[in-house]
């Protein structure tokens, strides 16, 4: 685990190249999964190293795809990963290899 207060994926993915869409999705899902499946948006924002606008866009997409579920209370909202999201993480390498080969990376 990286030291507390350090963006989780910076050293691995962000040092040399721009992350692809699929990598960002994987990073967000991994952050949610690591936090025992429940996390606040501020934590996702910090750990996934995205701007607020970009993070909201990705969260909306992930909700639409049913990779994550949102739970709202009067004071906060939290996210947890679904079975579909876990399946995405499990199969990520195959997906990445396929899209990279066919030049579909964004």
């Amino acid at each position, binding site marked *: 685990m990286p030291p507390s207060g350090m963006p989780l994926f910076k050293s691995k993915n962000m040092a040399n190249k721009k992350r692809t869409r699929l990598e960002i999705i994987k990073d967000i899902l991994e952050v949610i999964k690591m936090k025992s499946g429940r996390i606040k948006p501020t934590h996702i924002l910090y750990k996934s190293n995205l701007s607020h606008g970009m993070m909201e866009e990705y969260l909306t997409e992930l909700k639409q795809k049913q990779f994550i579920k949102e739970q709202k209370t009067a004071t906060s909202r939290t996210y947890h990963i679904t079975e579909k999201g876990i399946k995405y993480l499990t199969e990520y390498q195959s997906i990445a290899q396929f899209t990279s080969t*066919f030049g*579909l990376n964004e």
Partner: protein
Amino acid sequence: MEMYYRVPTWFFGFDIGMEILYACIAALIAYQAYKVYKISEEQTIKHLTVAFGLISLSYIIWAGVNSFIFNTVANAVEGMCIGCLRDIAQGGLYLYTGLFIAGLVSLVYATLNIKKPGVYYLLLGLALTIMTISIQKFATSRVVALFFITYILYHYVGCYKNTHNPCTKTLIIAFTLLLISSIDFLFSPRYYEAYVIGHIFELGAYATFWYALIQIKKHGKQKKN
């Protein structure tokens, strides 16, 4: 009257078998892409599924047309007028080229990575219009296909320069062979050798596509482990 292609008599049957094989490999890629789409729900992968699905369907139609001609000629079907034979074969060939070009347009659209369906319909509409209004429809469709394959090849060369992915290199070889076969088919209305050589290059292209698919699976599994 437009001449489509010349086929040496000894090659009848072989061409049909090869076209069915191309259809199977294209269908296999489409199926693999569909499996990846079901997990990732990425739109570009959906377009890739549609692209190879259409290409597979186009080869089935082509094999069907050639099989129809082969059976009609071989059995000398009584009562079948030459005009009817020509109309059925012509309709089938136009359907084949239309589907093949639609497949290539879908592939081009997937590689463009844009979320504007209007662009897809514009490309498809332009390609099919050029084909429809041309006097030499079949030859024109071959040129249009050539144009799209050249773009796809250019795209993959660019991708390989960025990623150095060995599987992309295999795809470059496959599309180069497909490009050569498409150039070769342009001469098939004049020389029957061109039809045979075109099929051989196409066989090489689809065998390479198949190898690329195996490579993708292997590399995907290796990375997972």
